[in-house]
């Protein structure tokens, strides 16, 4: 059971609104986002419920959910939202806050998703762009599942969807500098 009214101001809502630039209070719980979202069926709380939880200030429950990790930020939801709420930005804000306060869902799936994010960012840092083959290899190694999706490889290779090499961008150095600045700023916090 949830008790409301004793915790005073809803600081969680304020933090999410500030970080996302959206106003969660605008949500009137129609559920169009839920039926639009391609992955809502895999989430433990679909986007509409996440919105209501933020409104009620249920911070812990919200952080521990896997929904914001599953969110693809495809923006299908916000494209159809009748109140024009930037739901992916809200999900992003919850992700950030969860990391900042170190309240993260520790299920296997979420761990994998987080590794995927890390590897992807690493690829960008190195090459200024994604290097699909290496990314797939690294993901499979680091998640200890070597043959995951391997059956798709021949077809994808033949169609040229997975180039064997990578040509780093000319601006790769500049991108690397951006990473360094961002990391420095993050440490200062």
């Amino acid at each position: 059971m949830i008790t409301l009214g004793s915790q005073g101001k809803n600081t969680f809502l304020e933090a999410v609104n500030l970080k996302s630039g959206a106003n969660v209070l605008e949500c009137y719980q129609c559920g169009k986002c839920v039926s639009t979202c391609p992955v809502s069926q895999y989430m433990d709380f679909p986007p509409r419920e996440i919105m209501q939880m933020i409104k009620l200030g249920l911070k812990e429950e919200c952080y521990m959910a896997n929904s914001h990790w599953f969110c693809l930020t495809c923006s299908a939801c916000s494209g159809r939202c009748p109140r024009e709420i930037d739901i992916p930005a809200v999900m992003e804000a919850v992700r950030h806050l969860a990391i900042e306060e170190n309240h993260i869902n520790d299920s296997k799936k979420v761990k994998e998703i987080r590794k995927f994010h890390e590897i992807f960012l690493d690829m960008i840092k190195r090459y200024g762009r994604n290097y699909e083959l290496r990314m797939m290899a690294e993901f499979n190694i680091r998640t200890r599942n070597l043959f995951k999706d391997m059956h798709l490889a021949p077809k994808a290779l033949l169609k040229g969807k997975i180039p064997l090499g990578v040509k780093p961008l000319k601006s790769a150095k500049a991108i690397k500098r951006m990473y360094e600045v961002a990391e420095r700023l993050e440490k200062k916090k």
Partner: protein
Amino acid sequence: MARVGVFVCFCGANIADYVDVPQVVEEVKRIKEVKYAVEYKYMCSDPGQGMIRDAIVQHKLTSIVVAACSPRMHEKTFRKALSDAGMNPYLLEVANIREHSSWVHQKDKKAATDKAMDLCRMAVAKSIANEQLHEISVPVTKRALVIGGGIAGIQAALDIADARIPVVLVEKSPSIGGKMAQLDETFPTLDCSQCILTPKMVDVASHPYIELIPYAEVLELQGFVGNYKVKIKKKASYVNFKTCTGCGACWQKCPVKVPNEYNLGLDKRKAIYTPFPQAVPNKPVIDAEHCTMLTKGKCGICAKVCLPGAIDYQMQDEIIEREIGAVVVATGYDMWDPKPYEEYGVGRFKDIITSLEFERMVSANGPTNGVPVRPSDGKVPKNVVFIKCVGSRDEAKGIEYCSKICCMYTTKHTILLHHKVHDSHAYVFYMDIRAAGKGYEEFVKKAQVDTAATYLRGRVSKIYKKGDKLMVRGEDAQIGQVVEVEADLVVLATAVSAPKDNPELARLLGISYDKYGYMSEAHPKLRPVETAKAGIFLAGCTQAPKDIPETVSQASACAAKVCGLFAGDTMKKDPMVSTINNEYCSGCQNCVNVCPYGAIVTDEVPVGHGSKDLRTVAKINEGVCQGCGSCVAICRSMAINLAGFTDPQIINEIVSI
């Protein structure tokens, strides 16, 4: 010999798809009195009516049968076509082959056609016995009675009076204003209720065409449309309004304190009082139940301090009689008593109040000067829980219907709470948010987004006390979990219910009311302002729960109806009324008892020609008779005939099938 013309309508596909119309025409042509029969796609259209007009002249027809839709739909249209061709309009018969045949027998075309032919044969047979009838003229008294001085009654009275028609406005309490005078601000614009209402109240008092009778009740209504006589009981106020200046010395000195009805008992008033400072008329009355001078003969202070000597302890109730032509019923509504909600602790916990009590608290002229407080300790609440549908949509404890206004006034309350107590938080338990109205949905958004009221979807299951807080438990269906809100104050959005005096008033006016006690309209869609009794109209919540804009619209509609009724010196009325053959009437008075309109009275006629002895017979008042036929059915001596539905007509119909 009768020459009947029959006109069968296709009604587009409505009739023609299920009834073989040409076959019907062939069939009626076989009746010997039928001299002309024809079918047409839309009989009600101008060419269709033209066919009727031409045939009347060409074939010298003596009566007309139109086989088409319900007579409720187009009887008037076709009667007019007959008139235009110089024929008495009541020589028309309508055979309803749409509602009574094609629509209800869509699966069996043969049966539908057979029935349509039967209906046509009956109509032809009846029309042969039709007689020429003429509209009845009834004189009109051009004065209207408005019962109830809330916003509905005020608006109706002002609109009628502005058309220079005298109005008698009767109000039960000492001041007009009604429930609207108790409101702080009004949704969805948040304009101050008093600011928009009190000028209208003053207009009523000063209008040359309005006679305001406050502190009074309607006792009796007799007569019929355009010619009513009303008896009004003016309760003794013990204050002579003519000499009273409204100075207020009396109520300042009065030693008796009683709960103040205007503030719902949240504070006290004196035994001599005006309901509120802006009252109209702004003259005090003495509450005879509590005044010690009137109950025990001790005190008399008000009379001593009254300089103009307006206090009169000997004053008696007064009966006022007026002749009027029309009545507008505008008795408003009552707030439903939430006592059955024991699981909420109603009555046990002081900090549970009703929405109207909250309204009085946040009102600038209220008992707490506009600040909501907890009745238990007088502290300003921080967390306030509003519970909607208390009594509404609850068949077990309350009433089945939706009270319509609670969603919006609760929305308003969350905003007012935020305005009055900036660091407060409103929680609203709701089942649905019904915000259908101009600017209403936007208003709800304002409450939810701008003032951050938390809406929780679910009915509250129980409230219990924890320390000095109230724990309100309900489900939030949006996340499928039970929630408990720690509340300082709980406000119940109690249902709107019919005034408890409505059934009694309905009986004395001779109009009907529904199972909840609301006055019934003549037709839910097409005659929402009229009652089944001619000349009596409904405005505002006396008919069903309504908000202020709807109430005002209906009140103005009433005024238009009254003005229409009074437009000529006489009124026209359908001639379908009962007539009594005195020679057959035995004076049993069964008809007097069954007449739902009170149209039959008794009369005395000589026993025989030139005789001085008298005997009792029934007498029909044509102005009141609505032609329902109840008296015809009950009359054992067959003395009563209903014009347009005489015995020969009905017998012809029966014989024809």
